[in-house]
């Protein structure tokens, strides 16, 4: 189950019409094929979250269009799930872990609840949280909270998973574990994935293609084919010559060394 996500000439202006209108980015076009994993890298504040929110139908674009399987997106479409940068805030503190994971399924009729609960336990097992069903999110570590958010995303059976720097707030080791987890789940469930991040290595490690957002005025400066073999491994892949080349190139782009001298 996966879908094609297409952004055409998307532009976002905050405070449109007012004197202090702020152009976040302009003319961004990106075509993500079904089951593809695309990473978008850009410096902090360049508009990554804004772009992803527009892709999710959570915020309107000022111009341009977002299409999901050829259908224009105007609100959050079913099957598009967003993993938030502030994952701790996206969990419901009054619900236990299992009830958080159940949340997307609660529109289902009561008679199915039992089997759905079992399915949710299964998702928790997949993210390595078996046995934590009846804990509350605030009783868990940051990395575990993000795992709960991932299990909840799975429960919604996503066609598209949008990941907004989901691992930026956890320690380096946990980050690698979560990256591998997401890759495993992506391979099993074949959803389309779009990740935004400022972490170049993360982008290269996870994605099929990496799109680079430029410094202000933000636009899409290039899209690079990663071409590293899968399954990817934190030690082997990161030592691959191709990995280092890509890392080098993207770092240069993000640090602005490739920026042409203004005329």
């Amino acid at each position, binding site marked *: 189950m996966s879908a094609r996500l297409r952004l055409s000439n998307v532009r976002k202006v905050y405070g449109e019409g007012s004197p202090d209108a702020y152009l976040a980015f302009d003319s961004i076009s990106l075509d993500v094929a079904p089951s593809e994993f695309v990473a978008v890298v850009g410096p902090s504040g360049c508009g990554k979250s804004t772009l992803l*929110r527009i892709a999710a139908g959570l915020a309107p674009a000022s111009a341009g269009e977002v299409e999901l399987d050829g259908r224009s997106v105007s609100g959050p479409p079913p099957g*598009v799930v967003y993993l938030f940068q502030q994952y701790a805030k996206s969990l419901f503190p009054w619900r236990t872990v299992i009830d958080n994971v159940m949340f997307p399924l609660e529109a289902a009729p009561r008679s199915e609840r039992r089997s759905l609960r079992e399915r949710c336990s299964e998702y928790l097992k997949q993210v390595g949280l078996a046995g934590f069903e009846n804990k509350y999110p605030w009783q868990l570590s940051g990395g575990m909270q993000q795992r709960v958010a991932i299990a909840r995303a799975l429960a919604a059976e996503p066609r598209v998973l949008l990941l907004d720097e989901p691992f930026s707030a956890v320690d380096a080791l946990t980050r690698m574990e979560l990256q591998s987890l997401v890759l495993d789940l992506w391979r099993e469930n074949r959803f389309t994935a779009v990740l935004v991040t400022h972490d170049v290595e993360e982008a290269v490690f996870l994605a099929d293609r990496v799109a680079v957002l430029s410094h202000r005025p933000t636009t899409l400066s290039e899209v690079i084919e990663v071409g590293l073999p899968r399954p990817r491994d934190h030690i082997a892949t990161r030592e691959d010559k191709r990995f280092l080349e890509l890392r080098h190139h993207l770092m240069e782009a993000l640090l602005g060394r490739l920026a042409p001298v203004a005329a």
Partner: protein
Amino acid sequence: MRDRLLPRLLGILSIVALLGAWEVASRTGALNPVLMPRPSLVGLTLWEILVGGEFLGPLGHTLLLFAVGYGLACLIGITLGLLMGASPVIYGLFEPLVELIRPLPKSALVPALFLFLGIGPATMVTVVVLAAVFPVLINTLQGVRGIDPVLLDTARTFQCSRTRTLLSVVLPAAMPMILAGMRVGLGLGLVLVILAEMLAGESGLGYLILDLQRSFQIREMYAWIAVLAAVGGTLAVIFDWMDKRVVPWRGRA
């Protein structure tokens, strides 16, 4: 646990010291023993009231009035606060009215209410509602306003309907604020129910305390004031106990 014990002991000590000073002052005549009878005598009277079960009638009366008024106030305050927080139209409709009545000391409305509702339970319940509803309402509104947008976006991406979002996301998310408002409303409501009973009651703790004062049964008056203090204290303890169970994530999420 240990570091909480010492302040608590000191707190009890200050009460004991005050009562002791009063006892001595009353015995030596430094305080007028008629107007300020010795705490030991008041204690004896209190004991008689408690053992005889005499306190149950007036206490039940006051608590019933209070419970009805406070319950209504919470119901109205939370419902209206949620709706005002969720809908600009409803907000626009009620905001001027709320801002008009809210700053009024509710005790000032008691005489007027007697005119409309007569001297009886209807007035007293109304007074309690008026006293307790505003802190609940305002806090609910602020709780709804202050809800993290990430939580609402989460609900939206999971196709949560407006009603379900309101009831199963907004309401629980605002709960810590709502309970803080209910805590304030609890104190105000209690003050007003006693005041209303003093002004218009034919029974209840407020009525009794004033009646005893008028008939110069000073010792009994103090004993009943002690009962009232215990009621206030007990309600506060029950409330805090409930608060910990309803919003265990307070300050942690």
